[in-house]
């Protein structure tokens, strides 16, 4: 399918260039994109619209169905507000913990040699691959009421945090790892020969080069955590005001036939995620400007 299409497009573009009249001021505006570019851009925009933009826009529109006053009341009902603050707070803590430990794991995977390294490297992706409800089940078995470790985190906020930690672990590891692999080891040796101790080399040479990747991994982990449903639903027990996360709250609002309220809370999550991604983008620009 792809090849004849691509070939056809390429041919058209080529013919167009060959038979194109000498450039005129007016013609230039119409022919800003070549055939291939226009087709690619068109498909990308259409796809993105159908899958992401239109559904999201609908949620935002729906949340405003009953006016701004209703929106505000829906978001600030005690149970919704508690769910939102818990979700955002826990996600922030979890993202920060994974920032530190994810970087450490990436470091160990890149710089150290130990038996079973390839297996550990594969295991990191497991939270991505596993259905999150299975993750919840596993965590409940290990840290639930019948915990073989005697550690019962079920129905507690710690349990929520644990589930989020599990699900978001890969993000920082997988963003930092490639940067660390690419990092020029000569830089570290140069720093050493200039008198820098290993700690000084880490702080002044390695860390600044990792920070953009660390931050982008953290932002991704954060946005993933605020939207988490499956892994928390079992271990948290969904106790309103205590352990119910925003996604579960949305679900229960829909079950109670309050779709506008559900849309309002969704919109808040959407805005928080968007802000986090915007900050990430700014940080990356800041990083690449100096790269």
């Amino acid at each position, binding site marked *: 399918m792809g090849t004849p299409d691509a070939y056809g497009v390429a041919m058209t573009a080529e013919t167009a260039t060959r038979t194109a009249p000498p450039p005129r001021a007016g013609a230039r505006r119409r022919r800003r994109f070549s055939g291939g570019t226009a087709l690619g851009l068109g498909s990308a925009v259409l796809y993105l619209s159908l899958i992401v933009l239109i559904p999201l826009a609908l949620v935002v529109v729906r949340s405003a169905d009953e006016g701004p006053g209703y929106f505000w009341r829906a978001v600030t009902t005690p149970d919704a507000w508690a769910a939102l603050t818990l979700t955002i707070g826990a996600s922030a803590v979890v993202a920060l913990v994974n920032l530190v430990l994810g970087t450490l794991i990436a470091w160990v995977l890149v710089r150290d040699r130990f038996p079973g390294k390839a297996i550990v490297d594969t295991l990191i992706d497991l939270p991505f691959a596993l259905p999150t409800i299975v993750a919840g089940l596993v965590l409940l078995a290990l840290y639930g009421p019948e915990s073989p470790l005697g550690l019962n985190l079920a129905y507690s906020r710690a349990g929520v945090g644990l589930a989020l930690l599990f699900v978001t672990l890969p993000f920082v590891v997988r963003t930092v790892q490639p940067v660390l692999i690419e990092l020029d080891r000569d830089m570290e*040796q140069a*720093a*050493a020969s200039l008198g*820098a101790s290993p700690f*000084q080399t880490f702080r002044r040479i390695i860390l600044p080069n990792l920070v953009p990747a660390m931050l982008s991994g953290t932002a991704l982990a954060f946005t993933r955590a605020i939207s988490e449903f499956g892994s928390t639903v079992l271990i948290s027990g969904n106790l309103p005001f205590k352990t119910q996360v925003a996604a579960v709250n949305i679900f229960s609002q829909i079950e109670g036939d309050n779709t506008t309220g559900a849309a309002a809370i969704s919109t808040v999550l959407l805005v928080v995620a968007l802000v986090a991604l915007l900050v990430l983008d700014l940080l990356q620009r800041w990083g690449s400007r100096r790269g």
Partner: protein
Amino acid sequence: MAIEVRDVNKSFGTTPVLRDVSVDVASGSLTALLGPSGGGKSTLLRVIAGLEHPDTGTVRISGVDATRLAPQRRNVGFVFQHYAAFKHMTVFRNVAFGLEIRKRPKDEIRRRVMELLELVHLEQMAGRYPSQLSGGQRQRMALARALAVEPQVLLLDEPFGALDAQVRKELRTWLRRLHDEVHVTTVFVTHDQEEAIEVADTVVVLADGAVEQVGSPSDVYDNPANPFVMRFLGPVTEIGGSLVRPHDIEISAEPRPGSGEATVTRIVRLGFEVRVELLVGDREAWAQVTRGTAERLGLAPGDIVNVRPSPGARSLALTGA
């Protein structure tokens, strides 16, 4: 002696890279470690810098045993082939790094860095990042960075290896001039004999992890210790069972003492030089003559001429040839 390397052995796994290497580097000299790739020259340099540890043997820097010293404590400047620029820092901060580590006062750092940037002609680039510099500029920055800490010894690992031919030649001449200004004991690694001969005042030829010869550039070129060194330092051709430099071969129409007959097979004009390809008996050889000589002799393919090594030419007898 600024550097004394004694009986150093080093293996990577089971592969020996340095075998009983002993080298002395005089204070204030500019020494080239010359040899083919994989000959151990970079490893030797890294052993001197403390970036590798020798299995056996000792390294003394300015009379102090440095064999077990960490690179931080050797006060050695090291310049890498691929610059090893701190890419998240400006040129200024790169050069200032060693001084900041040494906690020098701010105004002293500022003065010293600007002095060095002027020395390497990068004073306009202080605020740029390494990614905004050309290869040659990056390497000059790396050099300034290494010089900033006033090292006892400056070590350069194929410093011009990653640069294109034109920049290479410029930087070579410039390094020589810089050394004449700064006088810091300098050792650089190269596989380019022309570079070694042009820049260094002492050449150490290394092959297969062992020192083949040490001497001045003209010494190693004119009096090679063995056929390997002779071959490595310049073009050679074989005539009458000896290795001879092609420009040391005399061609004449009439026989002369010590000459033998040869057939001209091909003549290649390379500007001022003419490369005359010959068949001596059943062996191929070649001679490098000037255009004037070629024209005076009226050389043409198929001619029978007489050839001999010019009197006073250095030649090495090849055993078993």
